[in-house]
């Protein structure tokens, strides 16, 4: 029996993206919740502090930190929890029996995540623009968008690794345990300049801090520590290996 060729990866990736976006926007509260948290954090914690909000560099850096948080949170929640939840539905194993490899689905997930992560940044940037003295040049803005995509990749790997290795209940606990301490220690809620020495040193070994420093550099021109890029790359490789390992061993739901 002759084996027909499968459909092109690109057209399948477009198809998966379209349907994942469709599924997500049919539950609008999920989209709104995603957009709200970083914007509210900006409104309550940055805007009232005139020392930060009134200083162009500090205000821009604070916006960058929260943008980093928004992207990290989207990666961990929508990929980590999203993949774990999908695997728990009987439709996901069915989709895996269709003649398509994992790549279109992964690409679909990445684009869907990117679309909603960027949507989540819109209210944050609007608030920063309207209520603080944060400022960027058009060149900095474009560069920052590229940097955001780059620094999101390691967290994408971490999210997928969690999503494909755990049940939804375990994934939500792990995502929360990972996200908030890593955001705090990475200087996403408070600027690392006010950290004690030991915490600052520890912080610089974290991917959240490295991502934050690179993003703040793109936005404000403040030089990051020399370790930022190697630290981010190192975690990136580790998380990518984790994601691939988790996907390969996964056979859908498993019960013992």
């Amino acid at each position, binding site marked *: 029996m002759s*084996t027909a060729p499968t*459909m092109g990866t690109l057209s399948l990736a477009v198809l998966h993206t379209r*349907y994942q976006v*469709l*599924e997500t926007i049919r539950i609008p509260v999920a989209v709104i919740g995603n957009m709200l948290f970083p914007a509210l954090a900006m409104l309550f914690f940055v805007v009232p502090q005139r020392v930060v909000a009134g200083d162009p560099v500090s205000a821009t850096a604070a916006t960058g930190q929260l943008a980093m948080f928004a992207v990290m949170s989207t990666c961990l929640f929508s990929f980590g929890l999203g993949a774990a939840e999908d695997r728990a539905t009987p*439709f996901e194993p069915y989709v895996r*029996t269709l003649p398509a490899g994992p790549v279109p689905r992964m690409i679909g997930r990445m684009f869907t995540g990117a679309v909603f992560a960027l949507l989540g940044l819109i209210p944050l940037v609007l608030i920063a623009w309207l209520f603080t003295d944060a400022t960027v040049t058009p060149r900095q803005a474009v560069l920052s968008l590229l940097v955001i995509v780059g620094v999101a990749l390691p967290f994408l790997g971490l999210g997928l690794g969690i999503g494909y290795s755990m049940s939804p209940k375990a994934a939500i606990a792990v995502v929360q345990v990972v996200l908030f301490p890593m955001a705090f220690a990475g200087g996403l809620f408070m600027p690392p300049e006010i950290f004690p020495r030991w915490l600052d040193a520890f912080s610089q070994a974290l991917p959240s801090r490295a991502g934050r420093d690179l993003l703040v550099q793109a936005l404000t021109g403040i030089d990051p520590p020399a370790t930022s890029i190697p630290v981010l790359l190192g975690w990136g490789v580790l998380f990518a290996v984790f994601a691939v390992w988790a996907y390969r061993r996964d056979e859908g739901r498993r019960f013992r």
Partner: protein
Amino acid sequence: MTAPVIEVSHVTRRFGAVVALDDVSLAVQPGELVGMLGPNGAGKTTLLSLVNGLRKPDAGTIRLFGGDPRTPASRVGLGSTPQETGLPPTLRVAEVVDFVARHYPNPRPTARLLEQFGLADLARRQTGGLSGGEKRRLAVALALVGNPALVLLDEPTTGLDVDGRHMLWAALRDYHATGGTIVLTSHYLEEVQALAERVVVIDHGHVLADDALDVVIGRVAVRRVALTLPDAADLVALRDLPGVVDVSEVGNGVNRVELLTADADALVRELVRTDTAFSDLEVRSASLEEAFLALTRKEVAA
């Protein structure tokens, strides 16, 4: 001779300490309509999940159209069904069909497929709002949308009413008449009888029987004869009666026994001929489950 559509050789699959499939070998040729029968937990679903590439065997090999089912290219000719509860609830019926269709190079037109499965009026409905029977019909329609050479159906008509079941059977017969290969699992002897040409009986991870429909049906079509005896039952003597495959005591205090037999008529005649005292005679056809248990015990004893 053409190459088999499915070739399973010496496959073993464990889940922890449980052996779901134990050294199973099986081949399905193009155009066959195979029914897989077996009680819950027999290993049918595990076998399908190996053939559709969802799981890997611990030992042995699985070939689908001559290739590894875990590579997407091997699955271009394969159609399978999600579990009825497994449709994405926010997507509309036509959207789900379209999504699946676009994975295949030569899909059936969505509108005609929905028509055939009586779903045309529901095309704009979100799948979360469908009844159980409608979901089941949609699930089976998804198996056929890609114009596959082989479809795997796991309990295709569970939860359907009589009309829904006959509509599905008709659709499957049409598909088979155009040369399609079907492997289906079922709890219902009736369903396997209505559709299958070849029957594979699986239990405890073993293939107990693999033969033409009527041959297998003859083996599992047992009757249950219950009767009350005046004295304590001599189980050994009862077991020697015509066609008896299993004897069990059911009475609490009364000497009531149940016999599973392939030939209830001969059994009753023999009881009468030997002037055996009995009362409350009851004869009914055994359920598929009982038939399997009998068949299984006989295999173990043999």
